[in-house]
């Protein structure tokens, strides 16, 4: 590009400084020309090499009425499309489109039949009746054996699945995962090709909802054996039983899904293809793709919100399901083991101010309880049935508690505490807010310990903090995914909060099948966590996104494939 610019005419020779060779300007113009020709030749050669030796994007319009398909962007290369070991949201989203478990969720987050058309869950066992018209994308039927194989494999020691724990409600699962029992001892049997029986380790009222989760997806054993270690590394190394098949996966570039003609409910699938034409890590670049009309969906990060508002796009909100809090170190040697000190910190904490003045993203809600608003209760939502007591910031009372704490701890001045935080703009903003906030109201000095992801985790693990900004995203659709977080045995309880009362109620919620009894237990847990100041709640996160108005039927969900385009459709151009 630079070389195509024609140089200005050579200056008159008498005016030129003596050390310039006359005529050189003209000569240089020739070189510009040669350079340009050479450049074009090089570009053509590189273009040829590019097409021969590298993978590329599959380009198509954002909405293509002719092929009845949409174009999208992935935020990263899917790390793992093996359903037994996948843990991240991008892989989970793709798998949710191409695979199907025993059950699945509909647009209203209700559990509906998937591969199983009927099911019963009792205290000791569960039984699923599989439909006979479900097929893999190679035409072989999906049978109960495929589930037995996949579940045994997910728990096998060699598989080393991080999500193995989600299967622990199945009888002997934990022992199999520890290598103490052979995988054949796992409490799951194919009674016939189309009937699956599961023995439970303990009563698990939400077991049915687990079967919609990625780790519980079936795997075709015969196919798996043909691929071995290469299973799921490429599109050809997978077969599918879901609404779509993956026909193309160019690593780091694009993924293409096409309607699976073998899917049992194919009539409900209205798109013919979902094209993930780009893989882009940069959230701003993704938004620019949306702006240029290349894709139909883009998330909006905090830093892009102003720009999105300027464009007057229709911005939608989605509760992303996670709860964020300041986790407190309860280890006895820490100052924060003192209840009065924790109470003082809690009493000045103002989640409403945090959300409105610091986070400033619509869709976020002030944190009130460890159980987020979307958790289901007995009939409706848990938080409607069991409201949390109101939190009113009270700096005066807080200072009284601080004075008591200083007395108990033999301190002459307010203590200095270490706040462990991630090293990114969002965490920095929040940790600095807390630093200023606690200094202003309590005179407590906060030392901010900024660490990158893995190092922060290591410090959380070893207990090297007083306070840490943390959060929790749910694993399954039941209050227990939040409820057992601060049980003394939970490895995510990094502050080592120990309460017999909480433990007892978590056990009730784990073992009871009576919804009312369980919800009562959760209610006790949420209040005790607040009263004990086990943690200080900050907010429930939300997410913002823009979507092309020509696309309908896209579901957002907290658990499972999100966003879910499986039953999306194009809205006619005319209407």
């Amino acid at each position, binding site marked *: 590009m*630079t070389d195509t610019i024609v140089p200005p005419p050579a200056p008159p020779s008498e005016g030129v400084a003596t050390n310039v060779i006359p*005529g050189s300007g003209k000569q240089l113009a020739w*070189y510009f020309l040669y350079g340009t020709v050479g450049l074009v030749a090089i570009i053509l050669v590189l273009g040829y090499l590019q097409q021969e030796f590298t993978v590329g994007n599959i380009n198509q319009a954002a909405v293509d009425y002719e092929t009845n398909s949409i174009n999208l962007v992935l935020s990263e290369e899917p790390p793992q499309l*093996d359903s037994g070991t996948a843990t991240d949201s991008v892989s989970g989203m793709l798998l949710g489109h191409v695979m199907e478990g025993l059950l699945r969720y509909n647009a209203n987050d209700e559990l509906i039949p998937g591969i199983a058309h009927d099911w019963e869950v009792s205290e000791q066992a569960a039984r699923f009746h599989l439909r006979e018209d479900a097929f893999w994308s190679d035409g072989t039927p999906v049978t109960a054996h495929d589930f037995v194989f996949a579940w045994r494999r997910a728990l096998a020691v060699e598989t080393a699945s991080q999500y193995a*724990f989600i299967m622990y409600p199945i009888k002997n699962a934990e022992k199999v995962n520890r290598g103490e029992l052979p995988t054949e001892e796992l409490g799951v049997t194919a009674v016939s090709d189309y009937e699956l029986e599961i023995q439970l380790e303990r009563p698990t009222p939400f077991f049915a909802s687990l079967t919609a989760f990625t780790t519980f997806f079936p795997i075709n054993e015969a196919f798996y054996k043909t691929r071995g270690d290469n299973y799921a590394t490429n599109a050809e190394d997978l077969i599918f039983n879901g609404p779509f098949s993956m026909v193309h996966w160019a690593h780091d570039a694009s993924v293409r899904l096409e309607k699976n003609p073998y899917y049992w409910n194919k009539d409900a699938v209205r798109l013919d293809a979902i094209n993930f034409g780009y893989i*882009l890590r940069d959230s701003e670049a993704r938004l620019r793709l949306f702006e*240029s009309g290349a894709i139909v969906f883009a998330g909006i990060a905090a830093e892009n919100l102003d720009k999105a508002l300027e464009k007057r796009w229709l911005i939608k909100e989605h509760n992303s399901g996670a709860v964020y809090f300041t986790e407190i170190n309860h280890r006895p040697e820490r100052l924060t083991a003192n209840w009065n000190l924790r109470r003082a910190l809690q009493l000045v904490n103002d989640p409403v101010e945090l959300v409105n003045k610091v986070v400033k993203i619509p869709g976020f809600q002030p944190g009130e309880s460890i159980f987020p608003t979307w958790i289901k209760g007995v009939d409706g939502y848990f938080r409607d049935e069991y409201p949390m007591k109101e939190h009113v910031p009270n700096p005066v009372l807080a200072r009284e508690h601080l004075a008591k704490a200083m007395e108990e701890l033999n301190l002459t001045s307010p203590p200095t505490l270490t706040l462990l935080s991630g090293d990114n703009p969002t965490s920095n903003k929040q940790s600095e807010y807390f630093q200023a906030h606690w200094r202003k109201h309590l005179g407590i000095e906060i030392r901010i310990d900024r660490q990158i992801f893995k190092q922060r985790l290591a410090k959380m*693990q070893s207990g090297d903090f007083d306070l840490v900004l943390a959060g929790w995203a749910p694993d399954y659709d039941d209050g227990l995914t939040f409820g057992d977080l601060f049980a003394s045995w939970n490895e995510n309880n990094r502050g080592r909060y120990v309460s017999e009362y909480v433990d007892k109620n978590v056990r009730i919620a784990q073992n009871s099948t009576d919804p009312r009894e369980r919800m009562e237990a959760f209610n006790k847990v949420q209040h005790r966590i607040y009263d004990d100041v086990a943690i200080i709640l900050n907010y429930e996160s939300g997410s913002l996104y823009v979507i092309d108005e020509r696309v309908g039927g896209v579901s957002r969900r907290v658990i499972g494939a999100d966003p879910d385009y499986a039953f999306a459709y194009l809205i006619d151009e005319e209407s």
Partner: protein
Amino acid sequence: MLTYTLKRLLQGVVTVWFIATVTFFAMHALPGNPLESEKGMSETIRANLDKKFGLDKPEYVQYFTYMFNMVKGDFGLSFKHENRSVNSIIRERFPVSAILGILAIVFAGLGGVLWGALTAIYRNRWPDILIIILVIVGISVPSFVFASVGQLGLVFLNRFFGTTVLPVAGWGEISHMLTPALILGLGTMAFLTRLMRSSMLEIVNADFIRTARSKGVPPTQVFAKHQLRNAVLPVVTVLGPSIAGITTGGFVVENIFGIPGLGQYFVLAVQQSDYGVIMGTTVFYGAFLVFMVILVDLLYAWIDPRVRLE
């Protein structure tokens, strides 16, 4: 010449071994388990993962196993993309970075030489001043700014013409690589322009130029054969290392333009403590850089016999 070549190659092998060793132990010295994720792991699950990735063995055993496999050309498995081998990641991703990098270096090299020559010819006149201002901008503005602004420019360009003149992001066609390559090469182009300018100005007063002119060689020939050719030499010298630099430094541009190159893996692996990919990419790039430097040295030795004797 042969002895010199062998000596340099041997030094190169030792350097690569050194890079691999230092990286290995530095990486293990990082706090935190590479398999750790936001969700806490039970002892059982952690033990299973450690076993799968060989982290259950003592560090020195891991080191020797790794070195042994590396000599055989096996870089092991990625920790994040669990089933993929680091070899396949490098094999698939490096050509992309290389193609983009070569184009960037061509842009930078051609642009640098021509702009530099131009500034020298029009020294202290407006083309010189304008280009030098642009050079300062090119050197001081980080590439992510250029990349973002460039991409925004493409959005406007396409909207203005109502069609895709140049794609905003992606890879696979010639049109995809032009903008990213130009942006990737900008910094180097600016640097080379400055280098070219000073070397041009230095040479124009050299004795051999004066001799050539006084004996009646036509001015255009003096410019082309004596001044330009000699001034280009230092540029060629720094081109070697900058090829490696550009091919490895594409992280930002690859991220923003969605280009499936190796630069992303190189940087993200460190953040994710992906031991397999950290080792694989570092050793690979290290070897690449060392090879480039040796190549330049050998070229020099071939051009200038005095170097061989030193």
